[in-house]
């Protein structure tokens, strides 16, 4: 199936469930197709789980959900070797991470040790446990969520780990009309139950290969790098975006270009993705934070400062 069609089917399928979230779906699919992971920071009840489930069901992929609590252990995520008394041998029971689409809910409530277990696995694509190395699935895609309201008892993700997520964005509350439509739609049954797989995992893998083939001119690569470099020199930033960020930006721009039906990347794609890809990677100086500087504000400023090729 041509990639364009894959995209359209996925978009349409998810849209039946998540109405009024076209922008978020677009970003999600861009991250998904580029092989990166997504962090959703949003208020409770805005549909994060629904989104992940909708995506999983549209593909027909395996889906697991982990609810992060403070007493969650790394073994709960990665797996544990259980001793079977009958054969007197250890059997490895895989953890929740061995799946295609993983939803890590409220990731900031678990202890740092547990968080890093997940994030290392995400980054490397494999799990090392008790001397053995097990590869994760090829399609492995994580959607992590966290509440923006900092309650007592949360461990905010350390900066180095934030870098592992290709994008961070929020769903937000929908427009009133859409909310009303949602109420009507969910009167009888949840639309999620009606979602059937419309693309196969092979189509998705094909999609990812196509994304890698989208052409990027040197000028736009330079533009992406300029944006990232500028974030390092803005006053108030303790730590700017790393080269990993440039990579993620270009890859996501390729995915977005493919989503729009083009064969090459244009500057609009790069600009559209600047905030979702870069903002969460910046570490703001505490003094500047208390003067009202936000990471999002800085990235928007950078986009307005660096001249765009045209």
């Amino acid at each position: 199936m041509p990639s364009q069609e894959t995209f359209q089917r996925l978009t349409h399928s998810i849209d039946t469930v998540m109405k009024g979230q076209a922008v978020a779906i677009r970003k999600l699919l861009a991250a998904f197709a580029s092989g990166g992971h997504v962090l959703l920071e949003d208020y409770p009840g805005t549909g994060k789980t629904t989104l992940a489930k909708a995506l999983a069901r549209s593909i027909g992929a395996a889906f697991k959900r982990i609810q992060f609590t403070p007493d969650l252990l790394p073994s709960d995520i990665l797996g544990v070797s259980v001793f079977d008394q009958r054969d007197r041998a250890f059997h490895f029971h895989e953890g929740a991470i061995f799946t295609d689409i993983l939803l890590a809910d409220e990731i900031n409530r678990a202890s740092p040790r547990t968080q890093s277990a997940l994030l290392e696995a995400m980054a490397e694509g494999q799990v090392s446990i008790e001397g053995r190395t097990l590869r994760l699935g090829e399609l492995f895609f994580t959607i992590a969520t966290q509440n923006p309201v900092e309650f007592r008892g949360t461990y905010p993700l350390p900066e180095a780990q934030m870098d592992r997520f290709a994008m961070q964005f929020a769903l937000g509350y929908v427009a009133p009309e859409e909310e009303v439509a949602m109420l009507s739609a969910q009167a009888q049954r949840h639309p999620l139950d009606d979602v059937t797989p419309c693309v196969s995992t092979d189509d998705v893998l094909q999609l990812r290969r196509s994304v890698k083939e989208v052409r990027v001119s040197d000028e736009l690569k330079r533009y992406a790098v300029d944006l990232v470099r500028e974030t390092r020199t803005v006053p108030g930033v303790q730590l700017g975006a790393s080269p990993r960020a440039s990579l993620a930006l270009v890859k996501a721009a390729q995915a977005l270009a493919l989503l729009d039906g083009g064969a090459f990347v244009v500057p609009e794609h790069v600009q559209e993705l600047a905030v979702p890809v870069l903002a969460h990677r910046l570490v703001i100086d505490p003094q500047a934070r208390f003067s009202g500087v936000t990471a999002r504000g800085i990235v928007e400023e950078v986009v307005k400062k660096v001249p765009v090729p045209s």
Partner: protein
Amino acid sequence: MSTPPLLLGAAVLFWGWATGLLLPAIAVAAILEGARAVPWRVDFSRRDFNRVSDLCAILFAGSAIYLFTAVGGMRVVDGPRAITVLFQWLPLLAAPLVACQAYSTAGTVDLSVFFWTLRKKAADEPGASSGALDLAYPYAALCILSASAANVRTPAYYASLCLLAAWALWSRRSRRFSSLWWGTSLAVAVVAGYAGHLALHRVQQKLEEVAFEYISGLVRRDTDPFRSTTAIGHLGRLKLSDRILLRVEPAAGQGAPILLREASYNVYKSPAWFALGAGFTPVQPEAGGETWKLAPGPAPETSVGVSAYLNRGRGVLPLPARAMEIDGLAVVRLSSNRLGAVKVDEGLGLVTYRVRVGPGALLDAPPTDFDVGVAAAESVAVAQIADELELASKPPAARLEAVAAFFRTNFHYSTYADQPVGGAPLEDFLVRKRSGHCEYFATATVLLLRAAGVPARYATGYSVQEWSPLERRYVVRARHAHSWALAWVEGAWRDLDTTPPEWVDAEAAGVASAFEPVSDFLSWVVFLFSRWRYGEGWDGVGRYLVWLLVPLVLVLAWRLYGRRRIGRARTEAARGEPAALHPGADSEFYLIADRLAVAGLGRRSTEPVSTWISRLEEGHAPVATDTLRQIARLHYRYRFDPDGIGADERQALRARVEAWLAAPGTGRG
């Protein structure tokens, strides 16, 4: 400097032109505007600014002290006048500080430079700055206001003022309105200002006329610059002061005239003399405006030089007897009367002139009835004495001698004492006391002569007595004020001074003080300065002052030159590496972008094309955005597709752009 180019220089030159200090003004203007041309700047620290500010303050204080105290007692340079001169000098005194700002890297002056308390605060907290002040515009305003103190009364001042104001306002005008509105508003304001100031001046003149006597009675002691009356006691009071009023240079090889007359009077009504029937008529100057003939006929070559201060440029000129012509008197209006008084209506504060004395002077008119009358109050006593001396029987020339002898033998001189002027002072003097000062002697002489049938007049003026070795000329002090009698004998007026000669020493003893040499010296310095100031040229003081300033300026410049000089940060012409030629740089799309930019619809540098087109749509710009989007798509393919654009698509791009550009209007299509 934040002023538009050359505005500050123009303001300084304007000041120089108005106050007459054109050469210093040119220097200051060159220094200030030169800051634009030189590429370097000096890194002045706060201490440097403090020092320069202190220097300006010292100069200011020095000038103030000099103008106020040294010249304070002078008749012309009293309090307010000194302020005016000081104010005119202010731009020059403040120039060093402004020059420092012009050449400093900071470009502004910290407020702590001006105030001691702020300096202390700055010393405690070195980091905090107490606000910066840009001196450029205030200095321009100071120049204009200083120029106003120079009192240039021609319309040229107002015209220049309007020009400078327009220049300053033009650079700061609001871009919202067209220049036409700006010009109209300015024109209205200029005309209104002109009408306003004419009205204001007229109002003040009216007020002055009405309140003249009241105000002048309160303010000025000398209520009568034109000496239309003099009361007995007036000169007496004048004699109490020691200051030098006149300076007299006799002709080469000749002695000084003994008496300089200011005015004469013909009617005595106790206790004052009046000049009746003596209206002033203007004297016409000769060609050149500096020579005034008082009597017809050729004037002799020898002359007496006199320098006198005129209060506010108006007053009577002290002249020797039989003055025929006055040379070198650069005043605007001169008039004279029948009684021999010559007054200046509009002149300078200090006048220096040469008087040519000749035998045929007819300045004083022949006697009239006034000159023979004696008032009833005194007539009895005077007639009695005249009879005693048997004046009637003597020939006219002998009568003078008799009268002189009478006074010489029977009277002695006493200095002016505060006697109540009332009753019959002259009778007292003649009959009982037989002692008094010159006014009594002169008055009595005139009345006696009249009683003897000789027409006589009363004259007031000065007696030239004292030679000053310091100045090498005669100086006339206030205590040399004198009065005497004029007698008409054999067709000419003759001086008759009956006051005992010891009056000079008697007055000197009363008034001289130990500080006389010092105050004389100061007075001389001020005289030199005043002479230079009133346009005597560069000889004398002017040259000396300049030589005094030059080493100071050199020292300052040398100290500043030794500082680090910091090259002014040049704005980099091109940032980073030169723009590499990127693919698609020759796309015709840029023509459309340029065309729209000219129409004010241009793309911002950080805005990608489709965002720009959306913005145009939202703003309802008169542009066909659909075709524009299609063209943009082709353009993007050309620019950002690494595989490049096909030939036919390239052709299509070109064609579409041409079609778009050719559509009527700005691409309405």
